[in-house]
């Protein structure tokens, strides 16, 4: 069953790396480690938590984005987030996908 959810993402200040806010309030490099929320109020809370990291000089421009959880795997709804989570579709040797190909890549 597919469940719509949201997560918070940003780019890390020192290297621009795409990162996701995890359940412990840290910024993880993989979407799999992200915290997913289904409730609007929770989403807002998560975003506010992420925004604090801007002041702490950890990340830039955090925002909420939509995913669908299917069989426990998060699939970004928009192509843009799919590409951010993996890397350029034309260079599979670059970006996150180069290190460890992740399952949700198959979604496109």
């Amino acid at each position, binding site marked *: 069953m597919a469940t719509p959810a949201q997560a918070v993402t940003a780019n890390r200040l020192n290297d*621009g790396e795409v990162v996701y806010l995890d359940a412990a309030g840290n910024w993880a490099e993989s979407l799999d480690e992200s915290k997913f929320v289904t409730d609007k109020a929770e989403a807002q809370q998560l975003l506010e938590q992420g925004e604090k990291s801007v002041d702490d000089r950890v990340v830039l421009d955090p925002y909420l984005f939509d995913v669908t959880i299917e069989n426990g795997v998060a699939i970004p709804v928009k192509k843009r987030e799919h*590409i951010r989570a993996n890397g350029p579709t034309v260079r599979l040797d670059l970006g996150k996908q180069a290190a460890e190909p992740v399952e949700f890549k198959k979604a496109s």
Partner: protein
Amino acid sequence: MYRYDEFDQQLVNERVEQFRGQVARRLSGELEEDEFKPLRLMNGLYLQLHAYMLRVAIPYGTLSSKQMRMLAHIARKYDRDYGHFTTRQNIQYNWPKLGDVPDILKDLATVEMHAIQTSGNCIRNVTSDQYAGVAADEIEDPRIASEIIRQWSTLHPEFSFLPRKFKIAVTGSPHDRAAIKVHDIGLIIVRNDKGEVGFEVYVGGGQGRTPMVGPRIREFLPKNELLAYLEAILRVYNELGRRDNLYKARIKILVHQTGAEKFAQMVEDEFAKIDKTGELNLPNDEIERITAYFADPAYKELPTISADFQAKKSEDPAFAAWVANNVAEHKVPGYAIVNISLKPIGGIPGDASADQMDAIADLMQKYSMDEIRVTHEQNLTLPYVEQGDLYDLWQSLKAHDLATANISQITDIIACPGLDYCNLANARSIPLAQEISERFGTGERADAIGELKIKISGCINACGHHHVGHIGILGVDKKGVEFYQITLGGSADENASLGDIVGPAFTEDKVIDAIETIVDTYLDKKQDGEKFLETYRRVGLAPFKETLYAAG
């Protein structure tokens, strides 16, 4: 080539250290992102989808082998072993770390390069004709004016905070290879009735959301008055350009809304106020000083046609095909202009690996008097090759996957980075270029199709020049799905035109077939010797519309 004087070098060195301080203050928290962002942009540093992106200026596209080697070194040391040559004749690195950027800029400064004014609302890197100095039909080398404009516009205090970015292009040939009519200012070097050399001035061209072919506002501008006149244009724009609306801030909107004639008059009024004998006057000896940097190299006296070269062409059809497509006529007998395609079949337009850059640097030294040009169509041009060396050069290029014989053919596609890299993109561009390239390839079919320029942008900002593609493709996002809108009949040359939208957009899986239908329609309608654009201009949109949408 131009060489930095002590002022140029000091300015660039100081800028590196300023930026080092700015980065340190950002990382230590003394600067907020809102404060830092304009500073990093002034040094060509963007934040894209996956990482920061650094855009390095290549003034009018000219590089020495030493500079090319440095670009390779930077790709290797600080990035992911490649760089991307752009339609602005620049190079972009897609993966630098913020803390490394001051060191990258320091390395660049050692070879007289920088990233100043490759972003922000200032006068950007001046672009020009890649055949500058070697084209047979050239009136005067456009690099001279380009360099003068570069010096004048570098850190120009009055024009560092314009309403929007500002791009100037210069050509010295009647055949425009620099797309000057779709620039904020386009200059064509011309000769008047009295035999004097000066500039024809176009203003308010551009692409993006509101594409315009720039109107001519001056038929002949004497050389010595170039800077005074440019300053007059910029002053009118700086005062009246729309700062209230990002989408209406480019000079093209001001020119269009004011009317070209009235705008020209406003520029003339401003021009009249400028003291032409003052600091904006360009004295002849200064023009001569700059001209000397671009003097012809020491050409040998060679036979007009090399017998050896002719023999190789008859022996080796693959070589002959490469010569036919990639080699252009040189103004000096026995020499040739060689275009290196950065569009391998199925490859990424404009990308070059660090190893390829090093190999190219070797070939520049060995065969082209140490010089190369980056073209706005994302290829490279060796300007000074002896005909007798062409066969050996071609073999070396082949060894590095740089000998694709497709210049100006259907596979010589301009594509912006698109949604694979860019923060602004709505759709991907590169995969389309790759699929089209694979569908048509090189050889008999591509030769039969002939000159056909496809240009692809992943959003309305039109970095991929789709408005002026013979076939233009614009990626749009419709509820999270990539769609592609096709335009036909655009052109960026001396007969510049904007493409016409053919009809409703296509999905990703239909767009390549649509391109093939357009090509087949052209082949069906073409008359003897007619190129795609000529056929389109004769028959119009209707037959293409019919074949594309009839079945639906």
